[in-house]
């Protein structure tokens, strides 16, 4: 699904060059659920941004589902993002003046889907995350956990190849975190490929594989026995 070879990225900081990613080789198979861990400054955010086509690497190759991702202009990047990727962020990033349903329907709008079909599909995904009764509510009428569920529904709505989650539980208490992880695990069980950046070990343990980043390099890549969030909840 994802093939990355010798990825390099550096930023100009004043006169100096800050080498953030120093040759990353990484591949993810379809249906995997990978946690990316690392302390701050390890380059994990930059890595995720490149994966999410929000930023471009200096050198190295990135192939997503057989499509080489290179020399993106804004338009093609936007199109690829819409087709291939779903984003889940720490701060949910819902549009505050739109209802939960409209938020979920947003990526479909940019696919050019008709309003009625859009609404139906968005409703379907809201049901999936258990918020069908909250469809007409605005984000600020929802709890943190509910907001993240709406964000997950939105990420799923365009039926992307890969879900990219950036600290999806960072703003939630542990019970809610586990509920959200439970949902993400269910989605993974259905075969969706998921990449999850986190610095919390218990959250990482809920994935199937953990990649450790340090100083711009992958220092450790391990498979783990997945801890089911549902079990953690019942403890």
């Amino acid at each position, binding site marked *: 699904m994802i093939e990355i070879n010798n990825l390099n990225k550096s930023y100009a900081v004043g006169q100096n060059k800050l080498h953030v990613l120093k040759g990353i080789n990484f591949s993810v198979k379809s249906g995997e659920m990978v946690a990316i861990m690392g302390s701050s400054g390890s380059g994990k955010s930059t890595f995720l941004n490149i994966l999410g086509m*929000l930023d471009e690497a200096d050198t190295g190759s990135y192939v997503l589902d057989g499509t080489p991702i290179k020399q993106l202009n*804004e338009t093609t990047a*936007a199109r690829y993002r819409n087709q291939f990727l779903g984003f889940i962020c720490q*701060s949910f990033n819902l549009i505050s003046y739109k209802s939960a349903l409209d938020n979920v329907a947003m990526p479909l709008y940019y*696919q050019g889907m008709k309003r009625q079909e859009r609404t139906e599909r968005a409703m379907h995904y809201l049901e999936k995350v258990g918020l069908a009764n909250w469809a007409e509510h605005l984000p600020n009428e929802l709890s943190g956990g509910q907001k993240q569920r709406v964000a997950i529904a939105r990420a799923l709505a365009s039926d992307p190849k890969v879900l990219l989650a950036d600290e999806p539980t960072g703003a939630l208490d542990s019970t809610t975190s586990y509920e959200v992880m439970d949902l993400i695990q269910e989605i993974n069980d259905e075969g969706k490929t998921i990449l999850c950046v986190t610095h919390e070990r218990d959250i990482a343990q809920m994935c199937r594989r953990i990649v450790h980043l340090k100083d711009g390099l992958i220092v450790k890549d391990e498979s783990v026995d997945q801890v089911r969030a549902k079990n953690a909840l019942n403890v």
Partner: protein
Amino acid sequence: MFSLERWHEIFETINKNRLRTFLTALSVASGIFILVILLGVSTGIQKGVQSEFEQDAANRISVWTGTTTKEYNGLNPGRYIQLKNEDYVLIESNYDDYLEYRTPIYSIWGGAVSYKDQNGTYRVEGAFPDQQFIENETMVQGRFIAQSDLDQTTKVAVIGHQMKRDLFKNEDPIGAQIDIQGINFIVVGVYSDPGGNREENRIFIPLSTAQKVFNAQDRLRSLAYTVKMSDDFDQAVALSSALSEQIDKDLRQKYSVAPDDRSAVRVNSTLEEAKRIYGLIDTIRGVFWFIGIGTIIAGIVGVSNIMLIVVKERTKEIGIRKALGALPWSIIGMILQEAIFVTAMAGFIGLFLGVGLLELVGPMVDSAFIKYPQVDFATAMTTVVVLILAGTLAGFIPAQRAAHIRPIEALRDE
């Protein structure tokens, strides 16, 4: 571009930010409102001045004489320069090709006129038939002075409409006998003058008759001409002023009058005056457009400014949209369309208010120099075009700014 979906988006944003939209709209609406009022007033001024000129033919040249005030060629000041029939003949023979209508005039002010028991004092003018066209008179009844009247020195009179109302009330004046300074005249016609009542208080009689009954011999009070108009206004003005200059020169030479003695010989070209006034109107119009456009620019800057704030405020939202796959042009389109929509709506409201006010108040305005202030269709359409352009301009920079928002920065957690 004009999909229902987009409109839905725009109405939603506007609805969510009513105060902001209202304030923006207010600045544009007042700009257009002021422009429309200014244009209406300038049209009113134009009409007012035009109607002032309509009382006489616009291409008129008038010649008067008076008393010399300057010594010239050893002649003392204080001489009265008397125009005679021969002067008229001389000018006509010299410049016949350039003249359209012509008449010598002998007139008396305060002529006592009576009909039965009604009487009044009016200006009595002895003139040629051409006087009708030079004074821009329209016949209401009967006829004007004819050449045969001049030849036979008949005692006929053409009276103004106002005179008819004063002397005859509801009687038919044609064929009636009136008394002018103790001499009987037959009324043959009634005229009306676009200049109104003041100009309709004159009575025209044949020049030959006037000179005879008032014992004027071959003396004249003034001369009046119109120059032949060509299609080119500037050319006509040039001809008119050259002609009046030449006539002026001829008369001064003949009567030995100092070239700068304005009171002894006066030759006046209405066309030249008209050109000056029309030039002034153009200037006023230009200034009004300038002020109006300036006001609109202030409005545009306002809209642009507010849209920039909007973009700033919505940076995160736009970032999210882009992350979800919004194409750059769809962001530009969204901001631009909102700006155009807001300016256009506000502008139309201002336009309608302005036109409405003019329609309401316009007919009540009746000053000498402003008449029926109005905005014609073409002007209204121009302002509409200005509006659409303004909206596009106002939205363009903010839209560009929005399109360049990088989702990575917008999505970064605080």
